[in-house]
């Protein structure tokens, strides 16, 4: 496993070079091994598609015994050692998160666009989008925004050349081969096909977001009435 510096206070552990489930599992395993016990001088760990980035404080590393002219080498050795002998961990099993979505209409202004490029009817797009199993590869971009793998190939739709200034929270979008859910009102270039009444970002809760890397996601169709009811009840 290659470890590359990212500036003077982070190291990037390169686990693979393609986006797939196998790489995802290896990222998760490496991340969990490193997170199981705090390493000296290390702050947070950020997993992504093919990497785990390890943030550290050079000053703290030196306090913990790193030689001043070899801080990174000292940390790299610690990381390798930990990865070779991971502490005993409970087998990780992601949860399955059920996501109710009201497709089309004002909630999914790009459903027709996705349908047109897929040469499918909007109903067929919805059917295929809900039938697939999705994997949360990583959370990023905005608080709780899940980058989901598993979108059926035929639904892949290029991003808008000009992103929308504001995408409403809960919007379910397709960006190229990815699908995801916007947690907050943010600018965004993905094709919006529907909206969920679920709150993705919950700053008052622990953890503060609905999904985590490694979770499975399943979309399910709801009517505008159900949407209104769920939104009012949350």
């Amino acid at each position, binding site marked *: 496993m290659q470890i*590359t*510096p*990212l*500036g*003077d*206070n*982070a190291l*990037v552990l390169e686990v693979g*070079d393609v*986006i797939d489930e196998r790489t995802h599992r290896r990222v998760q395993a490496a991340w969990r091994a490193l997170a199981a016990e705090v390493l000296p001088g290390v*702050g*947070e*760990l*950020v*997993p*992504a*598609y*093919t*990497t785990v*980035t390890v*943030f550290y404080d*050079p*000053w703290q590393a*030196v306090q913990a015994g790193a030689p*001043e*002219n*070899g*801080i*990174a080498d000292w940390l790299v050795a610690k990381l390798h050692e930990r990865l070779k002998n991971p502490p005993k961990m409970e087998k990780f099993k992601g949860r399955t998160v059920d996501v109710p979505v009201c497709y089309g209409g004002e909630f999914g202004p790009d459903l027709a666009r996705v349908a047109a490029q897929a040469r499918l009817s909007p109903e067929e797009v919805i059917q295929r989008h809900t039938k697939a199993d999705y994997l949360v590869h*990583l*959370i*990023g*971009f*905005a*608080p*709780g*925004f899940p*980058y989901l793998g598993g979108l059926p190939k035929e639904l892949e739709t290029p991003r808008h050349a000009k992103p929308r200034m504001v995408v409403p929270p809960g919007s379910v979008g397709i960006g190229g081969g990815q699908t995801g859910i916007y*947690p*907050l009102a*943010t600018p965004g270039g993905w094709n919006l096909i529907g909206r969920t009444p679920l709150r993705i*970002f919950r*700053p008052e809760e622990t*953890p*503060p*977001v609905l999904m*985590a*890397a490694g979770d499975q996601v399943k979309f399910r169709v709801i009517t505008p009435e159900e949407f209104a009811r769920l939104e009012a009840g949350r």
Partner: protein
Amino acid sequence: MIHVHKPGLLTTVQDLGRPGYQQYGIVVGGALDGFAARTVNLIVGNDDNAAVLEMAQTGPELSFERETLIAWGGANFEAHLGSEPLPRDRAVRVAAGETVSFGLAVTGMRAWLAVAGGVDVPLVMGSRSTYRRAGIGGHQGRPLVAGDTLKTGTPSEWAWKILAALHQDAKRATAWTVRPETMGRPAPAGVVRAMRGPEWDWFKVEAQLDFFRANWQATREADRMGVRLTGPMLVREKVGDMISSAVNAGVVQVPAAGQPIVLLPSRQSVGGYPRIAAVVAADLGRFTQLRPGDSMRFEETTLVSAHELYLARERDLNRVRTGLARLAG
């Protein structure tokens, strides 16, 4: 209690940020120049992570309900205590009801104001930093507006002693100053040290040479997330998309247009643009002070040298900390 009479252009409550939640897509944020914030906190006897006010371009007008000790530093702002100039980089005694007013930044962009005891806003996910996009943290999740009142925490023993000493001598401010820009081994003006980034090899040799020899200008496209620079076009050798990965404050990423963006603490947690370089932590504060049109160049350094710079600055700050602790006896 702090009363906000005028908010300034963009004044927010910030501490050293909200680390630990990047895996959930939550930005670290915090004072854009953490070292500057730590320094003003140190001057008033606060912990490093106490919440301060960060101001940008035009500062706020404030008054304090009780006599208190404050300190400010960063860009050169017009600053007054009543009708007198407000000294910077040192502890200043402000009487109850007196007005502290900041005007325009004369040079640079941002400054940090610490109050003994720190600004007391609720902790959200372990931090008092304002996270504007998510509408959380700081004061009600937003920049200050006129009419806001902010609570302050309990000043340290040390702060009380300094305040009492100033009071007794009928003095406004301490004679000593602490200036973060002199600590460690500062780069010459207009120079910022940087290391090669993980995707350095993705760029053509000409682009690699240009990166470290060109004069880069700051553009108007600058905020708490990053600063876009303009200069020679950085052409890539390797085409194709990069797989999104974590980014860090100081990372220099290059979108397709070939113009670099230097990321600041409120950056997103992951990014998908090739990272040609990374600015050393000790020099990142420079980017929080650039105005549109200001020019700078990057000087290449190694990881070991970057760590030397980092440690030198921490050592100096610790020396000051020890010295100040002795002051109050």
